[in-house]
């Protein structure tokens, strides 16, 4: 079992002929992902290791069922590429690029919502249903099948946690990188709700960080809706207060966003928070024993 993507998911790569696109196409194929087509304007008719390349997503969609797409597209052109994927009816869109203008991100999310598309990212490593389908840039070797769901705001830190889980013998069901930008497609709550329903997930690890109120909102949701054990790790305990967005930032956050506040909210929801990355597997083990 898995959420969002699985062994039947047909994946498109937008920007497949670029360096990153080609490199990660190969990595994903190696992982077992069903990469069925690529798009690079002007390169239609070519192929990358046998993966056919099209000029437009619509052209690819004429030849293949496309369930998901991943973007290897420079930030200034990412909005157009995202719109193209959504307009073509793609239901899971993974947006790797960082530095996408926030107004573009808002426009993408609004359009995705209208069209029922799940957006992962931007500024994410992607997502992986371990052993079945990897759509992203994470190193293959750490994502081995198991029953721990992982959802993270940050990328490399998530590999770190998954690496610790793997080392302790815990495989993962689905691992989702929410993305590090202010406006991203999925939030903790939506992923937690899916993982709660997923028969392949026994426990959930949340990797959060300071700033914003996503962890506090997740805590409130866990209290009411999640019965599976949830373990958290939060980065940023030692960080100095970040730059503020005028009064408006303070008004929106209303005191949320600090490390202590997040730990408190999560603990109150019954979620233990690991202080060091390597403690995560221990807390998972303890929670699963209960």
């Amino acid at each position: 079992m898995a959420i969002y993507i699985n062994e039947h998911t047909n994946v498109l790569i937008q920007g497949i002929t670029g360096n990153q696109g080609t490199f990660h196409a190969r990595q994903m194929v190696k992982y077992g992902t069903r990469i069925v087509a690529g798009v690079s304007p002007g390169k239609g008719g070519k192929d990358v290791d046998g993966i056919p390349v099209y000029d437009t997503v619509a052209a690819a969609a004429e030849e293949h069922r496309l369930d998901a797409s991943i973007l290897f597209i420079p930030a200034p052109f990412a909005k157009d590429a995202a719109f193209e994927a959504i307009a073509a009816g793609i239901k899971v869109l993974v947006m790797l690029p960082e530095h996408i203008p926030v107004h573009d991100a808002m426009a993408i999310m609004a359009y995705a919502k209208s069209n029922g598309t799940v957006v992962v990212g931007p500024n994410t490593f992607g997502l992986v249903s371990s052993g079945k389908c990897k759509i992203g840039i994470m190193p293959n070797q750490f994502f081995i099948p198991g029953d721990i769901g992982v959802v993270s705001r940050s990328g490399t830190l998530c590999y770190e946690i998954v690496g610790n889980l793997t080392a302790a013998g815990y495989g993962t069901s689905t691992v989702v990188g929410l993305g590090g930008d202010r406006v991203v497609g999925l939030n903790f709550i939506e992923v937690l709700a899916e993982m709660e329903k997923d028969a392949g997930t026994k426990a959930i690890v949340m990797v959060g960080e300071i700033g914003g109120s996503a962890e506090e909102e997740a805590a409130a949701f866990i209290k009411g809706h999640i019965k599976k054990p949830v373990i958290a790790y939060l980065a940023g305990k030692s960080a100095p207060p970040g730059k503020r967005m005028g009064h408006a930032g303070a008004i929106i956050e209303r005191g949320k966003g600090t490390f202590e506040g997040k730990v408190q909210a999560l603990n109150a929801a019954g979620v233990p928070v690991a202080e060091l990355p390597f403690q995560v597997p221990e807390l998972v083990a303890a929670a699963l024993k209960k």
Partner: protein
Amino acid sequence: MKLFEYMGKELFARYGIPVPEGGVAATAAEAAEIAGKIGSVVVKSQILSGKRGKAGGIGFTEDPQEAAELASRMLGSELRGFTVDKVLVEQKLKIDREFYLALTVDGAARKPVILASAFGGMDIEDVPEEHMVRMHLDVTIGLQPFVAREVVRRLGVTGDVARQISAILSGLYKMFVELDAELVEINPLVISGDKVIAADAKVTIDDDALFRHKDLPVVEERTEAEKKAHELGLSYVELDGDIAVMANGAGITMATLDLIQYYGGKPANFLDAGGGAGVEPTAKALELLLSKNPKAILINIFGGITRCDDVANAFAYVKQNIGIPVPVVIRLVGTNEDKGREILRENGIEAYKFMHEAAAKAVEIATGGRN
């Protein structure tokens, strides 16, 4: 990118938002000249921070000569950590009421949000929620007249003042969208007689969208080292410790700092080398760390899009060509890990597998084993 108040007000004027009569001055003489034309004025230090009044950065006068003196006192002075290069000299407003009006991005809602209050002014952050109007906007339709009607209704204003606030809101939204702003904030929005006027301007432009706003003025907030890091595509913040840190990804960099603190050390900086940096930028980043003379360097790489061999090669390059006079602790796992470890080994370094081990080692070196 934060804009100075005077820049924000120039943009306000362009978008039809009324601002006080006035001008910006870089010298006392200029300040006197502007004041002479206006009469009763306020002289405001232009720095990228609020709370200037409490810090003495704002003065009032009706005398041009005194305006020059105020400007002369402010210009070149240090205020809340910034040097004052310019002052804004503008008409002193008769203030009947102070409102608050802002547009920003609400990340949780993934939408723009209007924040407004009939209780604007200095203590806006303490205004209770029931006096704060929040309205999210749907970007697919933008700011429609009905939204403005609802905002003024909740503010409790009617008639011509409501009409003026609606018009200001409309201009503010147009500006917010067209300039890729993350924040446009007016505090206070002043009711002065029968006019509504923006008495202050806080505007922040999305750094990631600056590529399509080449016509905007460039405001530099970064230190020299931060600027250099930015040019290399790195996210860098100076801190006051002695362990230089480089990691790849904001989250893991934060976690690395947390570990240093956990083991009793002090990080010298936050340096997120990002994903997928090649040999050359990584080498440059290392040089940047060296330039601050740390007691130790901790490199923490979990390779995804970043390739461990690239990092190792960068280390080798700097070591062989520039020299690395301080101890370096490296943690290296992920993409092309074996290659990377081999290269490091050839350069006399055994990389760690776990970040907490590497952090503990770096702290041990920096503190001379005192922890």
